């Protein structure tokens, strides 16, 4: 317990001793994490919009006249990307048509018999699932026609994939940059106390006792940077939501508090963990070398 208190005191001293460097590190970590958070939020929103549109993505399969859709139905049912299938009988299709056309519907049945074929309505999870599905469907000889919103679907899935890719790249870059910056700051702090640490090891301080202040410092920088980034993102996002609502009201931006909260918590945890790991790495490398007997 006393050790913990001493460690906190020493952390405070370390940060004050290199306050310029500490602030610089804090700002760097904050900006990098801000950029990371911003891209991630952007990607999340793109995904959200795409999935919103995807909810309405339906592939319609029209059978040849007189063909039953049973074998197509069986095949589609085993496809894991399909969320729902509905077979529509000629009678049901006619009812729908009547409902849609009202009085003019009589023209359809003038010939005496129902001219409409069997059809299937298939829903898939993602836009990118549609193209392979369509490829599977057109090979059935009993299928007359497959109708889907082809170009839109392809474009959507490209956008979605690209934004995920960009945010993943930025994630990797951001983590590497802030890890390096924090690692380096801790290393400078360690070297400024090099003598002290060596003496402490000689008189019997444990590795943990020596590491603690540096690890705390690293966590402070990582978590502090993340906190600043979250504050910045919060402000930016709030104004972005307002701007979108007043000008591009048709865009469906994420305003779910819980999702945003989870996202910010994740960002904070990322910062803190990164600070912890970097500083621990830096300090344990140093103490291990100093403790090795010659």
């Amino acid at each position, binding site marked *: 317990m006393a050790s913990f208190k001493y460690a906190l005191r020493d952390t405070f001293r370390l940060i004050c001793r290199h306050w310029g460097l500490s602030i610089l590190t804090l700002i760097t970590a904050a900006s990098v994490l801000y950029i990371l958070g911003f891209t991630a939020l952007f990607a999340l929103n793109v995904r959200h919009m795409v999935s919103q549109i995807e909810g309405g993505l339906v592939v319609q399969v029209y059978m040849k006249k007189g063909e039953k859709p049973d074998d197509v139905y069986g095949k589609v049912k085993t496809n894991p990307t399909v969320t729902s299938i509905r077979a529509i009988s000629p009678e049901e299709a006619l009812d729908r048509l009547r409902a849609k056309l009202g009085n003019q519907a009589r023209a359809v049945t003038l010939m005496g018999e129902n001219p409409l074929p069997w059809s299937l309505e298939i829903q898939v999870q993602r836009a990118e699932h549609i193209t392979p599905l369509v490829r599977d469907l057109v090979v059935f000889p009993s299928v007359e026609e497959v109708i889907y919103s082809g170009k839109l679907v392809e474009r959507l899935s490209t956008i979605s994939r690209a934004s995920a890719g960009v945010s993943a790249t930025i994630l990797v870059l951001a983590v590497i940059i802030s890890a390096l910056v924090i690692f380096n700051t801790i290393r400078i702090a360690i070297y400024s106390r090099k003598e002290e640490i060596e003496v402490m*090891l000689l008189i019997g301080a444990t590795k943990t006792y020596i590491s603690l202040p540096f690890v705390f410092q690293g966590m402070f920088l990582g978590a502090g940077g993340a906190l600043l980034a979250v504050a910045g993102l919060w402000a930016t996002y709030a104004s972005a939501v307002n701007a979108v609502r007043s000008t591009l009201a048709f865009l469906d931006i994420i305003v779910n508090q819980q999702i945003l909260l989870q996202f910010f918590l994740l960002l904070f945890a990322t910062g803190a963990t990164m600070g912890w790991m970097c500083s621990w790495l830096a300090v344990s490398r140093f103490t291990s070398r100093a403790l090795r007997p010659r």
Partner: protein
Amino acid sequence: MDIRLAGVTKVFEPDIVALEDIYLSIDKGEFVYLVGTTGSGKTTLLRLISREYLPTRGQITVGDVNLRKIGRGRLPFYRRDVGVVFQDYKLLPNLTVFENVAFVLEAMGIPPRVVQNRANEVIDQVGLWRRRFLKPPQLSGGEQQRVAIARAMANSPSIFLADEPTGNLDLRTSEEIMRLLLSINAAGTTVLVATHDQYLVDAYRQRLVELHNGRLKRDERRGRYFIDGEL
């Protein structure tokens, strides 16, 4: 704790033989001078005992611990039981006398109030009470030496190693420090002092171990000297 060296040889890369085939046995509570010309291996021997170095050949046991087998996790706890006064003091220049002593105790996880009492006690013992808020660069050589001693005795180690504790000091100050070391020994601590000081060795007669070019040249058990009529 007793210290046993059996066939200890220390070779520094590539071919500096600092110690060669040393057999030495020091009992608990003994006071031993370690003498010898410069470069004869005194500091090396002390560093082997504090496990800064590992012997190239041979075994060192302290108490029931074989220093070759001691693990990373146990090393700090071993070192807490071995107080060392380094030849170059190794005081931290930007800490005060008090802080230099206190941080050793803090590193053992001792609560602040106890640290304060104990640090003040040893600082008083070495006669630096009125200097306790000065920093090492503001102190004279003898005062720095005494801070180093206070730091080494702060956590009451079983073994006390002093490397030239009277180097560069005048006779009066040297005698003061000798008396300090003898009083530490009188409390039951095993004390090993590396020194060049022929006068002290003769004036305060204790067991004398002499090294010459890394070999054991002489091991004399002479009459024990007790300070101020204590017996």
